[in-house]
């Protein structure tokens, strides 16, 4: 009995020490709730968009969220955070939405989930209302911020005055706002187009097997796979050499890029990539190209 107790004590010590010193625990900041979220982004103006949520661990889960942080005067950043289960679950339906924003004038940040970039709409510093051919007013960013719609993941979305007014009401009542036609959020049409996000509950074992099938297929026909990979590498290298004389990040052969959990590329990005590649291309830098 003593030996068994000692053995379990040893396991506990090992797990405790591993957890305390694990790089993921040390390097990745932790967000427990909205209050800590606010303190994680002290600057202003800032808009934090939730772009991914995933969990790791078979038995004991660790919850992660990825944010795209839009600073007005700095390049945007992609940042990962560990979160509490409650916070993670609460924001599962807010994918692609802004979950924190702080204006220069405001001391306190607001954490009501709103469509991405809602902070910038209606502020004359960033744009103005313009009449469209349909007769309704739509938000138009100034030339200096013309890249914002792309950064915010709007695609062809036009922020109308009705959309803005409706959003303000939701903000006042501290309720999540998904857009007039539910364009944003995990189920939103625009979010699906831009991020192609699948909720973790829907990432079934069958789906995993389905995704794994191309790897099995390639490993069964190694010669063809290697030829295909070589040709895809050549194509990419050629493409990069055409665009710039320097060797760009994209010219790194795909076979050297390993997939990482949480570095899942968007669905539409996968479609665009050649199917022959062994691994999906992953973002190599934390910074997002403007």
């Amino acid at each position: 009995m003593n030996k068994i107790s000692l053995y379990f004590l040893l396991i506990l010590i090992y797990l405790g020490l591993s957890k305390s010193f694990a790089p993921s625990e040390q390097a990745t900041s932790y967000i427990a709730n909205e209050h800590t979220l606010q303190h994680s982004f002290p600057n202003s103006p800032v808009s934090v968009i939730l772009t991914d949520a995933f969990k790791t661990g078979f038995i004991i889960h660790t919850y992660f969220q990825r944010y795209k942080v839009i600073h007005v005067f700095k390049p945007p950043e992609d940042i990962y955070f560990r979160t509490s289960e409650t916070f993670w679950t609460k924001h599962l339906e807010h994918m692609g939405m802004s979950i924190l924003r702080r204006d220069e004038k405001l001391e306190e940040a607001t954490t009501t989930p709103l469509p991405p970039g809602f902070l910038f709409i209606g502020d004359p510093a960033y744009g103005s209302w313009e009449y469209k051919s349909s007769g309704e007013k739509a938000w138009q960013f100034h030339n200096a911020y013309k890249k914002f719609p792309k950064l915010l993941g709007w695609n062809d979305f036009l922020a109308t005055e009705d959309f803005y007014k409706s959003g303000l009401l939701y903000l006042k009542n501290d309720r999540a706002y998904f857009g007039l036609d539910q364009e944003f959020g995990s189920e939103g049409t625009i979010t699906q187009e831009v991020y192609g996000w699948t909720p973790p509950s829907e990432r079934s074992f069958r789906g995993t097997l389905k995704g794994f099938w191309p790897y099995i297929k390639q490993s069964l026909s190694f010669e063809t796979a290697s030829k295909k990979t070589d040709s895809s590498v050549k194509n990419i290298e050629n493409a990069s050499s055409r665009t710039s004389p320097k060797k760009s990040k994209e010219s790194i052969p795909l076979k050297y890029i390993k997939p990482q959990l949480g570095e899942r590329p968007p669905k539409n990005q996968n479609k665009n990539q050649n199917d022959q590649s062994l691994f999906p291309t992953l973002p190599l830098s934390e910074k997002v190209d403007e």
Partner: protein
Amino acid sequence: MNELFDKLIIRIFFTLFICLLILAYKYIHALFYPSSRQQMFRRFSPRKNSTDTIHLFSRIIGVGLIFSQFSFDISQGLSEAFLTFALEACLGFVLYLSSLYIIESIVLYNFEYSDEILKRKNYAYALICFAQSVAIGYLVRAVLMAGHGSLVMILFLWLIALVLLGFASKTFPIISKLSFNRLLVQKNIGIALSYTGFLWGWTLIISSSLAHPYNSIYWYAIQIVLTILLSLIIFPLFKIGLVFAFNLQEESAKEKLNIAEDRPQEAIGHGIYEGGLFLTSCLLTMVITGHIEFGTFYPVF
């Protein structure tokens, strides 16, 4: 051709250097065991001194083990390569001898070399010395490899390795059912074989725990401790698993005393069993703790 000639010169230099160290050992041996100072410089008859032959050759095997994975960097020229090598090799040799002295003082503090080897011809003692030399040679080699030529790092790793090995040696009476001192006095080979398996097993675990990529001393030390802890968790599983799988009949604690006193032959059998079981379990543990590549299974940002 130039390159081939340089490599040949280095190999000859390496051979001469090892021969020189072996010769140096002859004199250091006299310092180690002052009571047998005269014996080392007399004519040596291996046929009549088989225990001493085991003892002596085990030391030389240890020296060979240290240098079994040395590297020469001739990119900066031959003279610098020789100098770097000579410094590192001398350091390795000094560490090896110091380790032997310390471990012998911990484990064999009740026994005297001249009594056991020269007078009593104790094969068990000679075998234990052999096991210690090989284990320490292997460990010093692992330290030199992990140290990457940094003097501070090598000394730090050597200290850690030696503390771990010394601590492990002290746990032998807890793990083994054979009485170390009593059976060694009785010249029982069983205890030597059991101890050999035990020490080599621990050496494998310690040296594998040193084989981590080095970033900072802090992280490195944590990784060593975690690997040792993990080994302590995995090891009993293999030990119990082997006993269970092959239905090995372990003697009870009560019977252990009878083995030691009345049935020396059974003690040999038990010693072989213990040593084999320990070494195999440690080897399998090392496979689990040291050589699994998990890739980027858990994200680190």
